[in-house]
């Protein structure tokens, strides 16, 4: 039934659409609620996607392990909370509180950011620079290998059990309710936080690339690495910086999404896949594209999840992406990709 329904819905006016998952008649409230949920979680996809784009633009490497790295950094943040609170976070049933305040939250983020930066620079220098002249396949597999290794290491160090991730007190309050109960839309503060942080970080990135010398140099390097070297730009160091920034975005995404996803080695697998799709959808070379791609994927994801049921959610997202790619091979906002020679 379901498979046919996908095609049937396109020929019927939207108001008669019936959710396959719930059997409820179409309601604008639910539709809007899905879109809002999609936009908010789409920000998480967008943060990872922008990270993927940063790396790809600077060094032509596609990081298939962005999700795994974000997962690792979320564990680091979790451990940071444990450290600050003096709780043994390695303990299988570490009793971290359900909510943490500003101090613990920011401390944990700071730790995760520092680790992200160091890790990014190290990965660039020791893992990818030696492969600069290797095939795309070797580079892709190297990132996959690193992701697999991280997954194993995290399962080893923290054990593979699911743990709750503490909520940030400031956004754990009562959700905002729009409209009167049967027809109301509910927006949690956390969801608002996702979007706000996502947008602020995007804006900061924009400022960085537009108005700082290092940001301009990064853009220049992405356009023409040879000429960049002639300008005295240390290409290796800047690639390291791009990796660092990329992983820092992922660290923040991890901390934001931690309470929703819960801590476990697989927490970011699905997010990583969607982020990757978002990056490609946006054009792989465009940061605004990645932001847009993330939000679009978030929306599609939620609508498909509601109307088609969880089973087909990811398939629809990918179907749309493949269609978009075949029609616009460079994504929504991308420029022609440079072929690796």
């Amino acid at each position, binding site marked *: *039934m*379901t*498979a*046919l329904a996908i095609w049937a819905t396109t020929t019927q006016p939207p108001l008669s659409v019936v959710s396959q998952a719930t059997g409820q008649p179409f309601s604008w409230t639910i539709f809007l609620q899905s879109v809002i949920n999609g936009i908010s979680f789409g920000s998480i996809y967008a943060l990872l996607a922008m990270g993927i784009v940063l790396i*790809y633009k600077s060094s032509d490497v*596609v990081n*298939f392990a962005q999700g795994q790295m974000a997962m690792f950094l979320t564990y680091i943040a979790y451990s940071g909370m444990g450290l600050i609170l003096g709780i043994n976070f390695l303990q299988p049933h570490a009793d971290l509180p359900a909510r943490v305040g500003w101090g613990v939250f920011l401390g944990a983020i700071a730790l995760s950011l520092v680790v992200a930066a160091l890790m990014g620079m190290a990965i660039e220098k020791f*893992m990818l620079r*030696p*492969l600069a002249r*290797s*095939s*795309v*396949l*070797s580079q*892709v*597999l*190297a990132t*996959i*290998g*690193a*992701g*697999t*290794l*991280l*997954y*194993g*290491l995290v*399962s*080893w160090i923290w*054990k*593979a059990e699911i743990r709750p991730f503490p909520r940030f007190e400031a956004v754990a309050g009562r959700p905002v309710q729009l409209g009167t109960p049967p027809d109301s839309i509910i927006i949690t503060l956390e969801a608002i936080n996702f979007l706000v942080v996502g947008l602020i970080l995007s804006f900061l990135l924009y400022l960085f690339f537009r108005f700082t010398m290092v940001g301009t140099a990064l853009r220049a390097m992405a356009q023409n690495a040879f000429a960049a070297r002639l300008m005295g730009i240390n290409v290796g160091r800047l690639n390291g910086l791009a990796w660092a920034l990329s992983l820092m975005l992922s660290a923040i995404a991890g901390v934001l999404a931690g309470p929703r996803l819960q801590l476990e*080695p697989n927490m970011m697998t699905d997010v990583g*896949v969607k982020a*990757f*799709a978002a990056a*490609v959808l946006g054009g*792989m070379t465009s940061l605004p594209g990645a932001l847009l791609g993330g939000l679009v994927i978030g929306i599609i994801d939620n609508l498909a999840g509601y109307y088609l*049921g*969880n*089973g*087909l*959610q*990811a*398939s629809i*997202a*990918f*179907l749309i*992406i*493949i269609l978009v*790619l*075949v029609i616009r*091979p460079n994504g929504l906002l991308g420029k022609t*990709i440079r*072929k*690796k*020679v």
Partner: protein
Amino acid sequence: MKWQKIQQTASGKYTRWVLIIAGFTALPWIITVLPFFGANNYTYSQLNLWLILAIVCLGLNLLTGVAGQISLGHAALFQIGAYIGGYFVARQGWPVWLVIIVAGLGTGIAGLILGLPALRLSGPYLAVATFGFSVAIPQLLAGSQDIAELYSDPNELATKIGVLTVPKQNLPGLKADDDLGRYFMFLLVFLIMLVLALNINRSRHGRAFYAIRDSETAATAMGVALGKYKLLAFIVSAVYAGVAGSLFAFQVGQLDANSTSFSVLASILFLTAIIIGGLGSVWGSVLGSAVITILPPFISAVNDTIKAAFGSSIENFESIFYGLLILIFIYFMPNGLSGAFQRLRMRYSSDPSKGPATPAEPAATDLPVS
């Protein structure tokens, strides 16, 4: 003169194949010298899984190693083959050999669909498209009621959606549980696919595939019809995955759409196998899949030792192992095991005392690994 030479090489080839077939035939007994592999059904089932994996890798290596197209979607093709094979045996009762062919061809069509985006996409875009295929197919098979109803048993109410129970298949007259007998059934299929792969590699088409990998622009300039060959590479490699998938259905007897055997992880495992074996090398595919098949009991043995020493074993320990394995091969043996063997052979086959060393003739099976 000329005739003699031809005769010589022909008979050399003949002897080689006799040796190869003898070796494969004796393998179930030879393998028992390895630790963890006794003369029991577990050992034989591992051998069968190896042949299945090797067939997938033969095809994937044609696509990725030879034609240079990344595919993260092969687990989905494998799954399609398994479900086609399972369906026609379990629901339609078709003869096994016919089913294997049908599974191969049906999956070939799926490969054509998977390859269509490849006409317009490359590099990361192709990776994400094939990746999406890998995510979507298990979901369709598990989550779509229509498709699930097609193959699940209408009489068995208790079956889980997406699960297909397949009567295990074997050579005529042998019991369904006889994994040693099944080894010879699979071996026959494997050898056919192996010979095919060797021939494709040496054919005009094979050279066209190399041209695509080495430089797409150069390939176009050389008059290789790029699109046609890319699609062809996808189709051929899908046929391999489909044949292997049907054998998998006959081996395990129960297919679960959500099992990791069909997940993206499996796609990564296939790629790992060809990296270990050697990109572009036919025998490398066979070797690489052997390594992947042999490892698990060793890995769990290491983990058991850790458990004995530290009191608890490591969850997802194999991830550490595979992650390291991939990295080690990429950095230290980028040409895989077959590349390493070839280098050894080069070193010992040229005798410096006999004048200028004749360049070792590239083994017909070991392709130039760049």
